[in-house]
């Protein structure tokens, strides 16, 4: 039982790190991205391949995954952040589909739908995992808190409010959005690596646009532009999903039901508590 609770805490910690990156994008900067899970996947695959094919140690695989995802985020960000609002969201959706197709079809590298089994676990015990994941989530929290109170964080919120005014005051909104895209991809990559080495198996189904929607749910429910929001949001969403499993539903029913539930949660949040549990902003401007 405690094993199970620790497992839940570890999963929440991984999602909290991931949601923290999305919080920088959505909460602070107002960028809706549905490719966060794709960048998470980039990190997971880099880490899994390096460890299982090349026998690289976890710390090195972890660092490479974070940096590789950040680099991917930077390239994508530089290419798409000149777009605004809905268009940007739509393009991230297109990219999420493309990334999924790559994970699914680049058989020689990703093994496609078969996935990559036997990824070496980084730690032997759940306790060690819990400590590591908690440290990672806290590091992400501290990073976002630090940004929150800094001139950079203020710039993000300004760009979120009014891109035109920001540009008239001399800010390159595109550069700002590219840096935050990169940083959020870095966190996604780190989380992806941890996920891969914790579960020891990955396949493309964990890195879909739908998964990104769950992440958006976490940020929205937890509260946008609040450093602790993503942790609460991750906890809430994971526990709700888990309680569905306890309801004894078969997986084929539980999975779509979960998605419907998250959709409903977003709607309810928007109608009755647009600022989420902790947030400073409402979802709509």
């Amino acid at each position: 039982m405690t094993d199970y609770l620790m497992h839940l805490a570890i999963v929440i910690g991984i999602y909290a790190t991931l949601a923290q990156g999305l919080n920088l994008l959505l909460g602070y900067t107002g960028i809706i991205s549905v490719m966060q899970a794709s960048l998470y996947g980039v990190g997971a695959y880099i880490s899994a391949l390096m460890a299982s094919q090349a026998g690289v140690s976890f710390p090195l695989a972890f660092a490479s995954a974070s940096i590789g995802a950040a680099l991917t985020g930077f390239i994508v960000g530089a290419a798409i952040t000149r777009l605004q609002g809905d268009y940007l969201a739509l393009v991230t959706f297109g990219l999420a589909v493309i990334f999924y197709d790559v994970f699914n079809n680049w058989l020689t590298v990703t093994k496609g739908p078969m996935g990559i089994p036997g990824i070496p676990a980084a730690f032997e015990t759940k306790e060690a995992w819990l400590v590591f994941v908690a440290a990672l989530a806290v590091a992400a929290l501290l990073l976002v808190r630090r940004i929150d109170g800094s001139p950079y964080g203020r710039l993000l919120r300004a760009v979120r409010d009014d891109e035109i005014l920001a540009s008239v005051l001399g800010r390159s909104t595109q550069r700002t959005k590219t840096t935050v895209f990169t940083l959020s991809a870095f966190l996604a990559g780190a989380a992806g690596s941890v996920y891969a080495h914790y579960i020891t198996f990955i396949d493309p189904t964990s890195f879909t646009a739908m998964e990104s929607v769950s992440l958006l749910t976490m940020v929205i429910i937890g509260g946008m532009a609040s450093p602790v929001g993503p942790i609460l949001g991750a906890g809430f969403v994971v526990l709700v999903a888990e309680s569905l499993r306890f309801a004894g539903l078969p997986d084929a029913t539980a999975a779509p039901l979960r998605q419907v539930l998250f959709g409903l949660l977003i709607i309810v949040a928007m109608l009755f508590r647009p600022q989420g549990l902790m947030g400073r902003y409402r979802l709509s401007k």
Partner: protein
Amino acid sequence: MKLAIEQLTRRFDGIDALIDVSCTVKAGEILAIAGPNGSGKTTLLDIVTGLTEADRGDIFLGDKRLIGKRPEHIAALGVARSFQIARLFHGLTVLENLIMADATEREGLMSAVLRGEGVAEKRARERAMEHLEYLGMAAYRDTAAAKLSAGQMRRVELGRLLMQERAQLLLLDEPTASLDPEMTQIAVKVIEGLRSKGKAIVLVEHNLDVVHYIADRVMVLDQGRKMADGKPSEVFQDLEIQAIFLGGGGNSHASHR
């Protein structure tokens, strides 16, 4: 620095917003732009700041060409503006809005992560507080801009202009609209103060009393055409110009939109 606008032309699907408009403003000079609604005043400011493209024409600030540059590059060359409907970052506090008008170099991600609050940030906050005191907005320093009244937003915009010490060219789009008479006087004083610091100022203004009082020159626009350019006392003597303001769809003293 001197602003030179040459034969600026812009058409919006069938409407001539500006036709061949040329003008200059020197450092330490206030050029007012007056004209009825829809005469092209805001469009001119939008083109200078890079928010709207011109179909034809050229713009120079000193020896730098502004046409074709992005808004942030134009801003970096020393151009500041205010908006017809006061424009603030709504989710930021009053104080943060002013600080956003200050230098940008400490906003890097790395300095956010690695360094604590710098001297420049502290200094900017002090300067911002001085301006807020002067504008009677100090009590609102931590209020979100979205919660302010229209008149208060105007004051914050004035404060933002005061923060932009490096700007050499100021473009003001009806800065006295929605201000009461007392606050209008303060705004006029602020603008005079900026002129005395040697800034070149373009002032779009519906209140002709303000134009008479403060402007060194006034350019009158009507339906995108330049109708006059000269000393206010002389320009407004002209009966044709008077007719524009009396009959031409505009109302000189009302604040619009």
